[in-house]
């Protein structure tokens, strides 16, 4: 279980607990549950936009990493 911090620099900062083998889509759903937006409107970025079907482990997202939260 890792905890990922998502910050959209407009005041919304979320810490989400998830597994390393979760996909980005799952992570987005968890974020959406906490922030109140729709998960398909969320864009996660860390120098590159993360694709929905790749797992967190493949993206080497570790515990405590800060991800940028954007909206589309």
């Amino acid at each position, binding site marked *: *279980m*890792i*905890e990922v*911090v998502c*910050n959209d620099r407009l005041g919304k*900062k*979320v*810490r*989400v*607990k*998830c*597994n*390393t083998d*979760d996909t980005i889509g*799952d992570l987005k*759903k*968890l974020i959406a*549950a*906490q922030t109140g937006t729709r998960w398909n409107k969320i864009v996660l970025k860390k120098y590159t936009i993360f694709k929905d079907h790749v797992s967190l482990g493949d993206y080497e997202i*570790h*515990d*405590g990493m*800060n991800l940028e939260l954007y909206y589309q």
Partner: protein
Amino acid sequence: MGSSKKHRGEKEAAGTTAAAGTGGATEQPPRHREHKKHKHRSGGSGGSGGERRKRSRERGGERGSGRRGAEAEARSSTHGRERSQAEPSERRVKREKRDDGYEAAASSKTSSGDASSLSIEETNKLRAKLGLKPLEVNAIKKEAGTKEEPVTADVINPMALRQREELREKLAAAKEKRLLNQKLGKIKTLGEDDPWLDDTAAWIERSRQLQKEKDLAEKRAKLLEEMDQEFGVSTLVEEEFGQRRQDLYSARDLQGLTVEHAIDSFREGETMILTLKDKGVLQEEEDVLVNVNLVDKERAEKNVELRKKKPDYLPYAEDESVDDLAQQKPRSILSKYDEELEGERPHSFRLEQGGTADGLRERELEEIRAKLRLQAQSLSTVGPRLASEYLTPEEMVTFKKTKRRVKKIRKKEKEVVVRADDLLPLGDQTQDGDFGSRLRGRGRRRVSEVEEEKEPVPQPLPSDDTRVENMDISDEEEGGAPPPGSPQVLEEDEAELELQKQLEKGRRLRQLQQLQQLRDSGEKVVEIVKKLESRQRGWEEDEDPERKGAIVFNATSEFCRTLGEIPTYGLAGNREEQEELMDFERDEERSANGGSESDGEENIGWSTFSASSTTILDEEPIVNRGLAAALLLCQNKGLLETTVQKVARVKAPNKSLPSAVYCIEDKMAIDDKYSRREEYRGFTQDFKEKDGYKPDVKIEYVDETGRKLTPKEAFRQLSHRFHGKGSGKMKTERRMKKLDEEALLKKMSSSDTPLGTVALLQEKQKAQKTPYIVLSGSGKSMNANTITK
């Protein structure tokens, strides 16, 4: 770091209780990040910071966990170097406690607003709702060192690793050697000999031993067989062994195998080796035999065909619609993809009895196909031929000459010798070109009176057409005076009779015409004139009785009445006759009627007026010539309002001033005493009557064309006016272009392409009267009719 010192004091005062507070950190670490120059100091206080942390745990109710994460990074960077061994252990203990506490109080953190987070249970609930598996909680705890509490990893000793690898290799090599030796040990070397080779006694011994063993083995086998028989297994065993003998492969076993080549590719007298085609291990399909060389050749041919780039699809290929066997070939859509979708289906044939194949069936099929093809009828009709304008001799034959219906006439033979002299006048008659005219009417002739005299027998008025004349039915002639004194003959030649008839007729006509020609041409003229006069008189005579009896009203007469007298009438001098007539008639009128003279005059005037063509009025433009003519007429009559209605336009504010010339009004120049006198400097107050008045004010800005402006554009307008300068050339051009594009966009039709393609297609459809449109076609269908729109 002044604040840090403050904290130090506070924390020490607070006590050393290791409260299971939230994992809030001190304010110090964030300061580490902010004041990078104080890094050394942060390093120094890092050690003590660790101790302080346990004290500070009770504080930090407001500390966001987000900060903790950020701090962790900072801390890891700065503190990593200074970890003492004591700290990790105690920190690990504390960390677990802190983590527990953190989870418990995590929910309270959500209200902090810094970074919201859910506890594990809540997260698991959410995940269950979303359909994800729950969090793996244990994984992280076992890991040595998260980001927050990094622990030194085990030192990777490369030397030790290498040694281990070497050991492993050695062991493996030794093992191999051992095994080899074992195997080789069994083989006899040259030096070693069996004793029984040289010594007979030993040999005898050996042979006896062998024999013994053989006997023993036989006994054992017998025993086993008996046992098998007991159990009833012997038959099975025999079958097994028996089958193996039978399984010797021979040609008869090849029956039914498929060979995946066309039978034509095998030539007589050639030997070709066929091998089993590769297939997957788990595939249960039957075996297929192929020849490797043939396969390659076929593939090469296919590639050559593909490279030729033949068209995939011939849209108008009307041939090949019938199969070889004279059956309709089913035409599938997109047949070029069938190979890709369904897979390749190569030619193949099966081997028959004894592993042979002779292709007899195929040859038979070919013969049948050829036969059917010969029998088949082509549906293509003969193409259109150019029709000849003249009848061909063949068609002439089909015409049947219709014989004239000739009645058998019993007549006395007329011994009339036909001479050439008699025929002469006939010749003239046939050349007469006067075949009558419609005007004169059928049958009406000037010489009608004369003819009537001449004709003893009243006949229907003969027409001018001499041919018609000649076509009189022979019956009438029969009634005529039979030629006297001619010997009676029972049967006569019909053609001669006819000839006689025609001759007589012709003679008669000629006589009449001669008589007619004797008349003077002058008489004719007189006649014509008289006729004309009679016609005219006829009209006027018609009028007179009308006029005498009643007053006639009609639109034209009323119109003319309104016109009034024409003072210039008759001055041109063209109207001598008419005037006389007019006078005469006027006198008549007056004497007769004495009534509405003006009317009479009018009427007279009009009746004679009608004959004239000159009018004093302008010629009215002919209205049916077009809209322009009609408009001109209306305009002349004053029916049109020519003043253009001015549409109420919004008075636009001043146009933006060009940037070249501008001046800024200086309002501070109004400083003279006299103008300032008018200003009111007193107290102003809102009107009490207008207390409840809350108007809904909506301020709209418009540009010079009347369009409503967006706030941005309005502001731009304002600033232009304020600064006294407008945009430059490029900017205004761009703006104009944008406005034009917007206008175009509005005008664009929403249901059609900009070029009106849909409308065009529909028109074409209507013209062709088909529900479809042929977009393109082969050369056959393109002709002049279809190319034009």
